[in-house]
């Protein structure tokens, strides 16, 4: 069937655009059941799926961590062979970085960012679905290496030439490489999508400097992804051509300089560190004011220090290479830039502390996790300064001191922040509260377990225990602190178990006691709480008009001349209670998951037989084809019981285009709704 491309152009003349399917299928309808999840383009469902997938991978990565700790419990343990240990630690690092911390950041960004800026969805809802499925399939593909001859064994940094076929003949590294290329595609499309959303789809009145800080940090993070992911993907393509087709990019026998890989990897790898931690910084910056009951201290400084970290993060990569043989001038320069990136980070910590000063602090679980982040991240930051000093770093790098450092940053920093975020926004996403008592038990056990696991590693590193060793000898004196770390790791695992228990326990309790979820349980400040819990499908109706930072808060409270507050509205008065009638939402689609599904098949094909790659290519191409040609909207998909869609298909079509392609904020329906609300 030929595409009639004059229809849209003819619109202004009054002709009706076509509403029947251009592609093979009409758009799917289901909003519930498993098909609803598979075809969804709703940023909230996608955010939840990101979170669920990340927690699933977290359990896998955590199990790998326990294997590592069990192996190192005593000298000369034989639980794992050298080969198995190398695979397990490589997959632990890879899983935690690419399949846990990054996607949890993406989960929060997907779920919250549109809500925080007053949008009904992201800019490109189908691309958003594609990003998720590509991430999930990439992650699963990576983990199927366990059943196809073993995981990657070159470390998550995969230094050349050890990643070459001669040194690692099994397919583990191929799985690592191709799997991460796929998740890289997911991150890149996600970055384009989320950046566009923040730039274009903010509610009326929400200028950049009125955005919640989590949204700011998401924007910075996505810019980092946008520029960092292409670098690692390029490096991984080189590695792929090396391993599959003998391209000799990193083959030292043919004269390659293996430092090329290190530069490419760390030009990605260091911004990567910041894009893992910044979302958690954003979360904490949004949580602390809620529980301190006063505004964030130095909003501008917090925002700009985040941006500064984003920029400076590009100029420090070679501090991972102080001992690699780069010249003394390079070492000096990167040593100094690394020191000075501590300044904006310190500014954040001091501003968080100042936010608490003079407040009235409520120690609910999210607040405990936030303070946990501040204190634990401080330890990680200070040990970071100690190895920005290049000569000291020559004694510390590649020892357990570094392992301690980055776990204090990524677990004590990023993950504790995420945990706080989970407890804080759980009612928003799922419509029930997580139990606070269990939550506090969860926090304290996690804090104990975390410190017991990673604290001793400082000492182990200074005692000279090297990283990535599958065993050690009695005579080096590592035994005591290793035992402590192993005990800590199992305590940590228990606390994670308590978190999972809390999810099910609180759900059951809320169900059986028929507890209604309070709409504003924490007396919150940011815009996402203006809609009831759990968030309705249409997010906002009408789109709110924003006048200042913490707009939701100032709908409830007014500042008196002496800088105190009086309540001006009840929660019930400020929460939106509408049924979303007439709100137009993007329709679900089959094609994102189909397009993403072809990618791992291409990857299997590159490893086992190129015919399979052809099949995968056909699936992905078919997905793109169907995607391009499917009707922009299901004519009957208008939300609720509004029937004006049937009456006026032309308007409907134009509105759908806008919703999907541009902006819910300028959506024709929304504008009408807004006029009502403003009026």
């Amino acid at each position: 069937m030929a595409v009639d491309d004059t229809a849209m152009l003819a619109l202004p003349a009054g002709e009706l655009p076509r509403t029947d399917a251009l592609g093979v299928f009409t758009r799917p309808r289901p909003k519930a059941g498993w098909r609803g999840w598979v075809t969804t383009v709703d940023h909230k469902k996608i955010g939840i799926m990101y979170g669920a997938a990340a927690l699933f991978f977290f359990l896998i990565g955590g199990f790998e961590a326990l294997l590592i700790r069990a192996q190192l419990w005593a000298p000369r343990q034989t639980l794992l062979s050298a080969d198995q240990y190398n695979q397990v630690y490589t997959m632990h690092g890879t899983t935690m970085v690419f399949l846990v911390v990054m996607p949890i950041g993406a989960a929060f960004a997907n779920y919250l960012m549109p809500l925080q800026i007053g949008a009904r969805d992201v800019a490109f809802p189908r691309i958003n679905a594609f990003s998720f499925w590509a991430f999930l399939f990439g992650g699963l593909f990576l983990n199927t290496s366990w059943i196809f001859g073993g995981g990657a064994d070159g470390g998550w940094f995969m230094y050349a030439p050890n990643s070459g076929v001669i040194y690692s003949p099994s397919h583990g590294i191929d799985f690592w490489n191709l799997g991460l290329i796929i998740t890289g595609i997911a991150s890149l499309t996600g970055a384009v999508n989320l950046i566009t959303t923040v730039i274009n789809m903010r509610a009326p009145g929400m200028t950049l400097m009125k955005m919640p800080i989590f949204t700011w940090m998401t924007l910075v993070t996505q810019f980092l992804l946008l520029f960092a992911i292409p670098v690692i993907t390029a490096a991984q393509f080189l590695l792929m051509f090396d391993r599959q087709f003998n391209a000799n990019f990193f083959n030292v026998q043919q004269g390659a300089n293996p430092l090329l890989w290190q530069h490419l990897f760390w030009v990605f790898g260091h911004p990567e560190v910041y894009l893992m931690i910044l979302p958690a910084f954003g979360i904490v910056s949004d949580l602390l004011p809620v529980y301190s009951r006063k505004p964030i201290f130095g909003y501008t400084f917090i925002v700009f220090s985040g941006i500064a970290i984003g920029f400076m993060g590009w100029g420090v990569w070679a501090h991972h290479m102080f001992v690699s043989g780069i010249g003394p001038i390079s070492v000096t320069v990167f040593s100094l830039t690394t020191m000075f990136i501590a300044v904006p980070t310190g500014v954040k910590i001091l501003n968080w502390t100042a936010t608490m000063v003079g407040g009235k602090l409520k120690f609910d679980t999210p607040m405990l996790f936030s303070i946990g982040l501040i204190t634990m991240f401080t330890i990680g930051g200070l040990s970071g300064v100690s190895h920005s000093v290049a000569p000291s770093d020559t004694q510390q790098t590649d020892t357990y001191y570094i392992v301690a450092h980055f776990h204090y940053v990524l677990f004590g920093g990023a993950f504790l922040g995420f945990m706080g975020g989970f407890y804080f926004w759980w009612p928003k996403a799922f419509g029930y509260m997580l139990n606070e008592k269990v939550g506090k038990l969860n926090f304290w056990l996690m804090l104990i377990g975390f410190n017991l696991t990673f604290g001793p590693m400082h000492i182990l590193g200074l005692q000279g225990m090297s990283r990535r060793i599958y065993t050690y000898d009695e005579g080096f004196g590592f035994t005591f602190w290793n035992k402590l770390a192993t005990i800590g790791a199992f305590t940590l695992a228990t606390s994670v178990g308590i978190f999972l228990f809390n999810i099910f326990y609180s759900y059951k309790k809320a169900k059986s006691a028929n507890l209604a979820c309070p709409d504003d349980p924490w007396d919150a400040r940011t815009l996402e709480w203006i809609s009831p819990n759990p968030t309705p499908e249409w997010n906002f109706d009408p789109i709110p008009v924003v006048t200042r930072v913490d707009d939701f808060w100032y709908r409830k409270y007014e500042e008196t001349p002496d800088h105190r507050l009086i309540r001006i509205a009840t929660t019930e008065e400020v929460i939106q209670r509408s049924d979303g009638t007439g709100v137009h939402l993007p329709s679900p689609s089959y094609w994102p998951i189909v397009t993403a599904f072809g990618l791992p098949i291409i990857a299997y094909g590159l490893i086992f037989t190129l015919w399979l790659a052809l099949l995968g290519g056909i699936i992905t191409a078919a997905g793109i084809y169907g995607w391009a040609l499917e009707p922009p909207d299901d004519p009957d998909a208008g939300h609720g019981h509004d029937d004006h869609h049937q009456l006026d298909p032309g308007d409907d079509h134009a509105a759908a285009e806008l919703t999907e392609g541009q902006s819910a904020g300028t959506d024709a329906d929304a504008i009408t709704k807004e006029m009502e609300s403003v009026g």
Partner: protein
Amino acid sequence: MTEQIKPADTAFGRGRTPLPLRILGTAAVLMIVILLIGQILQFWQLDGKPLNAINAKGPQAQEIQGLNQIVFIIAGLVFVAVMGTVLLVAWKYRERPGDDEQDFVKQTEGWFVGEVAWTILPGFILAVIGVMTVISIQNLQPDQSKPDVLKVKVTGNQWWWAFDYDLGEGTDASAILNGHNGTYTDKQDIDTATELVIPANTEVQLKITSNDVIHSFWIPALNGKKDAVPNLMSDWKLQADNPGVYLGQCTEFCGLSHANMRMLVRALPMDEWLVWVDNQRKESLIPDPSNVDAVAGRDYFKSAACAQCHLIRGVSDDIVTGPENGVKTWLVSGRAPDLTHVASRGMFAGAIFNLHFPDPDPVCVKRNAGKPASEQDRCDDPADNANPGNPANPINQNALEAWLRDPVAEKPMCPNAVALGNCDPEAASEEIAEGADRRGRGMPNLGLTEEQINQLVAYLSTLK
């Protein structure tokens, strides 16, 4: 229109924290404090363990440790200040029972002067550290024109270290140290493995590289680490103030047996070192005819697979090792340890086994003092790999026999891989039979008989 906020919602467990949780929280904070204090105590206790990175025994390591101490002290002060402030603030401004949630504290949004101050102050502290760092980086650069330094090329191989000395002709210290010419294969030069033997109190300038993957050379007591990168020569230096043995560990992940890749520096007084040099320059000793086993071992070595990779000068001279000299072995790195004077070394197989009995560990001896003999620990246990063997002591026959019997069982290696194959010996031997190239990494199991093992041990023990 004020609203009476509903009391804390106990249905979700909110409200006053119950006592057990309070106890847990207090215990957690206390435990973390104890853990921190324990770490600090351990940090200051230089326990004499061989890989301790804060136990400097030479000027380079001291340079680093001096800088390190300043940084740790500053970081410690900042840590106490920040942590103390956060905890104090959290305590002081906590919501107290009976507080009215709606009685609001003063709403402050920032303090510009403060912000600028706490941006500049850390910047200033860091600038001070920065200046010291830059000076230290310069101090740690080897001065290539410096006289009276020993020049050694250090080459990483999977999973052992090769040391090639660039020496001058002659036998006196000055001629040996100053006569270097940039090559490592002259008649007067030395090629050894696993142990870097140096004169104490003399600067040693290293050129560090690798024959296969990236390794990292690290002797914690003498200096920080430097990666051994193939196709790259990295300059580094170290110096031991006193004679002694200093252990090291490869710290860049280098594949299967990364954990088993160690090395040591043996610092000798200058006169002893000169004797050592003189001996190392000689061809291998021919065993006394009365030592029948050793003679048989020498013959076997020559005829068997050993001589396809290992050089013993005077026995397997046609093994020209190292890629720079044209690879002749089937090893990926092109090189196996030179065994010409293997019995002059204390350890073997990547310094993870003692080739000779070690001297009694002084800490252990001290611990034993006063105990009845039956309760005393063994202080010269040859299986204690952290206590390096002394070449002057008898040979540790058991370890060497076990190694020759089945090296792969003693240390994970991949000796039989083919071009695109795997480490499975059977699959590899099939492919090799079909004509594939061998690409071994490590020593294969040669299927030696007990008699052959005895003969080889007898022979190798004579190679002083």
